[in-house]
């Protein structure tokens, strides 16, 4: 059952060629669980992939505890250097000084070094660069969306040059006001794939926690040109050890 529900529908919806994944959530329906699932998948034993987690929201122990329940030992992966954890809760740090652009450039150089050493090693799989979350990065940059976008652009170049996967979490409701275009609109342009978590449109339910929309924006160079569906909608229920995904009404 876990295998069936544990991200199967999500995996089906996510097209293999997507390189920039933007996960949008809101207060009523947090999508952190999507990040956990993607992190678990990136580190899954068969694939041999790696991950670099830029954590602004939570400390390592938080992810470790959650992923352990999902059957993935982050501490072990960290020791074997398949997971690189950047603890950025104090980013950019008071002591370092200098402009935020420099801090972001330094952060990028650290990420790039990780990617390069990963590719130089014996690893066959893909490296996933994950940012949790971009809204906090913008806060750290004193609200300067341009600097954050520069940083993200460099991360995007990693995906095309070094075959990485970039996963970014952003809180959509922060940007819902009409104060022009923020980070969110730019991110939606950058993204190949948008995963959007929202509360149930029909109201609260005991056994459904929300609905997930997956939009494949379609890459310019498609992996499968004749690919059919681009937009997927389904419900989810978050559990201790993963999440269930199912189509509306298909649950007994």
């Amino acid at each position, binding site marked *: 059952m876990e295998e069936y529900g544990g991200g199967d529908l999500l995996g089906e919806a996510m097209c293999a060629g997507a390189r920039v994944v933007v996960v949008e959530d809101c207060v009523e329906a947090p999508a952190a669980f999507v990040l956990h699932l993607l992190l678990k998948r990136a580190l899954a034993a068969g694939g041999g992939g790696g991950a670099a987690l830029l954590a602004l929201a939570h400390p390592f122990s938080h992810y470790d505890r959650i992923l352990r329940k999902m059957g993935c030992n982050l501490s072990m992966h960290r020791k074997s250097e398949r997971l690189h954890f950047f603890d950025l809760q104090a980013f950019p740090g008071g002591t370092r000084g200098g402009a935020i652009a420099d801090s972001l*450039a330094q952060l*990028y*150089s650290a990420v*790039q*070094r990780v990617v390069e050493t990963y590719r130089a090693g014996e690893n066959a799989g893909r490296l996933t660069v994950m940012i949790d979350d971009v809204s906090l990065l913008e806060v750290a940059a004193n609200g300067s969306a*341009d600097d954050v*976008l*520069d940083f993200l*652009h*460099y991360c995007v*170049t990693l995906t*095309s*040059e070094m075959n990485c996967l970039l996963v970014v979490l952003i809180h959509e409701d922060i940007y*819902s006001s009409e104060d*022009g*275009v923020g980070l969110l*609109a*730019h991110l*939606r*342009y950058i993204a190949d794939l948008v995963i*959007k978590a*929202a*509360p149930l*449109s029909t109201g609260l339910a005991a056994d459904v926690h929300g*609905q997930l*929309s997956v*939009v*494949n*924006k*379609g890459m*310019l*160079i*498609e992996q499968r*040109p*004749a690919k059919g*569906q*681009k*937009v997927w*909608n389904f419900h989810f229920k978050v559990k201790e050890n993963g999440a269930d995904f199912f189509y509306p009404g298909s649950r007994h």
Partner: protein
Amino acid sequence: MADAAVRCLRDGRLDGEHAPALAVEGSLQCCPLAARAMLHVAAAVASNAAAGKAQARGLVVVAFDRSPEVYLDIMLRHGLDSNALSRCVRILDCYSDPLGWKQNIRSQQQQENSGTPCSTNKDTITTFRSVKDVDKLSCSIIDLGRGFEGEGKTYFSVAVDSISSMLRHASVQSISGLLSNLRSHDQISSIFWLMHSDLHETKFSRAFECLSTMVACVEPEVVDSVYGEERRGDMSFLEHNYSKAKFHVRLKRRNGRVKHLYEELCVEGYDVKFISATSVSMEVNQSLLPKVQFNLELSEKERSDRANVVLPFEHQGKGEPIRIYDGRRSLPEAHQDPNLTTAALMDETEALKSANPKGEIHYLRDSDDERPDSDEDPDDDLDI
């Protein structure tokens, strides 16, 4: 149509005039399609240049949003071989390292610095590392364009993808200055750019539209008019919009006439296909008539019959008496006296006075100037 726009870009500039400019615009609702349309135009312009059909010898692509490989790939798919690519296409790569961060890392690692802007192994692609410097960018574009071979004065086309990314690094004034400088440069045959209209205030995208001679808008086929894009959970219309869109082209002729063209754009494999629809004027004519079950249109015969009907006032004065009631006489009297004079009017009033008064109201008009049913306000001269 896309073809018409591409033809304009192909034919290039006339001596002493600005180069034709095409602005491709798209919004988030159909953004992959706008980008695809831009790539399509770029590939078409490049293949025209390679075939020697165009005024331009080559195309300089200023790439911000996509890696240069994407352009090369799409051009290869359009039938250009690698020989033609290296002859006719130059890509100014502002994607890989726009701010020079990577170069800094490399120089830290290797303690050696290669000069800027450094060419990569392929001579088609030139990496540009200081996008905030608009003057330098413009110089690099023109330098690249001068590199095309050809006898005499060589022209070239410029593609900018996209203005929206440039605007993150520089002000609107400097970018519009760059574009108009490029347009007036005497070696540039044509220029076209992509813009994401919803990333900017409307006035900015309007300002860039004013700089161009052609505007191609990629608009979503289906719009949720009630909720707009932001309706939670309902993205079903996106499915449709990501594979099909409306393609509106506005062409400004040299004599000032503006022509609107309308096409449908749909994804086909790696490329986009343009399906020509009837031009917009036809669309408007049809859509003005309400959709009803009976026929509101006239046939040719009905139309000519209608034109032959003599309207009531049309025969007046052609030998027959004028039958227009002027409010002063009864019709039979006017019938007998078509040439109305003041004397006749006096006679009439005399006749009325001598008649037997039986509670009738007699009204004498003050002057002939005043029309009987003047709708001027009677209280106009009151001073309250």
